[in-house]
């Protein structure tokens, strides 16, 4: 990075630290923060839409849809979510390969599960064995995103279902009295009003989502936990920058990162909540009205 970093063995003190923190591996480490933020940015809206569909299904008039919706929301209640994380990644991977196998290799006669192996034809591998490393990484990341979205979608469905139930009945009945159809009541009355009820649950969920991101490490993505372990481990003099076991400091840094991230989220969510409460027939909205008058 810097010119004086050419021979790291000869420098020391602050310039050593500067050189140390700007090695290629460290840039990979900094990039992995972007990975985590990307995961959050993609997962949050996807999980929200999964949750929305789930909540709609759970209150549908149509029995099978209701069963699926309720089953989806009940899924996460009794079982540790890490079980789902470990399960879905393999299950999705094998499901994709199985589907691909059925399409591409219809003449393949051997069973797919042979004893302890899961074997599909080479053309059905996802991603292909010959694909470059970047594709494999992107695929792993995509699997992680889908897994996170599925699990957090179930949480979000729980929250949104509760919020939809919390909208005062009188509002919906008034809309019906004006001659709105079911669909119109849903779109014009129910959905705009439910957010204020959903927000406390959703902000809680957002915090939980932030705190679940280190689990990416378990899903095999090279995330911040992976790099902290990698870089912090003690390096002998065979390395350019030998040092002792510094994993403690790297993890302390992660701790600070997460603490400031959750703190920032708290502040922002409090503002959104105040904004949404304006003019609502809730205790918070009433307090604002009185303060204003």
């Amino acid at each position, binding site marked *: 990075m810097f010119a004086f970093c050419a021979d790291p063995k000869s420098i020391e003190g602050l310039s050593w630290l500067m050189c140390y923190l700007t090695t290629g591996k460290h840039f990979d480490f900094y990039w992995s923060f972007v990975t985590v933020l990307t995961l959050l940015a993609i997962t949050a809206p996807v999980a929200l839409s999964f949750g929305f569909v789930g909540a709609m299904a759970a209150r549908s008039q149509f029995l099978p849809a209701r069963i699926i919706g309720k089953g989806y929301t009940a899924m*996460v*209640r*009794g*079982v*540790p*979510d*890490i*079980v789902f994380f*470990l*399960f879905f990644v*393999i*299950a999705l991977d*094998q499901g994709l390969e199985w589907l691909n196998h059925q399409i591409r290799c219809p003449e393949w006669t051997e069973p797919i*599960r042979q004893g*302890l*192996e*899961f074997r599909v034809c080479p053309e059905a591998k996802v991603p292909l064995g010959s694909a470059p490393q970047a594709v494999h990484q992107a695929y792993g990341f995509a699997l992680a995103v889908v897994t996170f979205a599925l699990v957090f979608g*179930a*949480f979000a469905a*729980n*929250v949104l279902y509760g919020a939809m139930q919390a909208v005062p009945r009188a509002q919906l009945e008034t809309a019906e009295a004006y001659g709105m159809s079911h669909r119109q009541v849903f779109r014009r009355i129910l959905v705009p009003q439910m957010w204020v009820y959903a927000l406390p649950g959703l902000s*809680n969920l957002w915090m*939980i989502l*932030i*705190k*679940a*991101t*280190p*689990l990416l*490490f*378990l899903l095999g993505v090279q995330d911040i*936990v992976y790099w*902290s*372990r990698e870089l*912090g481990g003690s390096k002998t003099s065979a390395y350019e920058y030998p040092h002792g*076991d510094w*994993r*403690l400091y790297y*993890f*302390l840094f*992660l*701790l600070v990162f*997460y*603490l400031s991230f*959750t*703190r920032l989220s708290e502040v922002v969510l409090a503002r959104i909540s105040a904004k949404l409460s304006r003019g609502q027939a809730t205790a918070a909205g009433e307090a604002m009205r009185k303060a204003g008058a």
Partner: protein
Amino acid sequence: MSCWQTINDYAFRSLGYGERLLPRTDFTLCQQFTLIGSGLIWNIYFGLFALITGFFLANAIALAKSAQNPWFRKPAEWFIFVFRGSPLFIQFFLAYEALQILPKTGINLFGITVETAWTTKAWAGALFVLFLNTAAYSAEIFHGALRSIPKGDLEAADAYGITGWARFRRIQWPTMMRLAWPAYTNEAIFLFHSTTLVYFSGFPAFQQRGDALYYANYFADKTFNPFVPYPIVAVYFIVLTLILIWVFGIMNRRLNRHLPSNMVSRIRLRPQLIR
């Protein structure tokens, strides 16, 4: 090999008794059920002891947080903020690395050598982290309950001349427990769920003595078939959750026994997972 034989061999494998080698080929359903159930002992151990010890610390911290004196209040607020604001996963890693730094030979305190090697073992180190973590979450719940004690109750206590410790023990504390109990039930459930993280963070499973998820992961890795071991873990945890809800429900009824039946607060399971 009959299933009875398997149970004999592996029922206490997670504690180091019975057969030493884990099954390697021809995995039977019976083996998976037995070993994963054996691992569940650790989940119950972590959950139960963290819950009991954490309960006392949580009470102390909740009181400290509602104290007027900033010397009590500020540390309590920071403690709660640090443990609730960061992922449990990172806390495990951090604790493991910090405990590793302790000198291996023990610390010499006034001529007595205090052993330190045991602190890096999961049974002690992870339990300690879970203890602090659940204390922080429960303290926040208790603090909230303490603040929502009806004003009338306290005024009634004043009117009867009940003050100080007696007021706390006979009026405030029981009401706080009663109000906090439904939320505390959820906290207990999710504490048990988060015990599955122990062997996936820094703490190694010594001689393959792990928890339920550790063995499930072992089977899934060996058989490439996630559709058997993970549902088994799920079944075990659903049963564990139901038992917890039942036990906490009994306590909830006791806490609410003086109230008319329409005012009793019911326990509702709310999703609030992972820390």
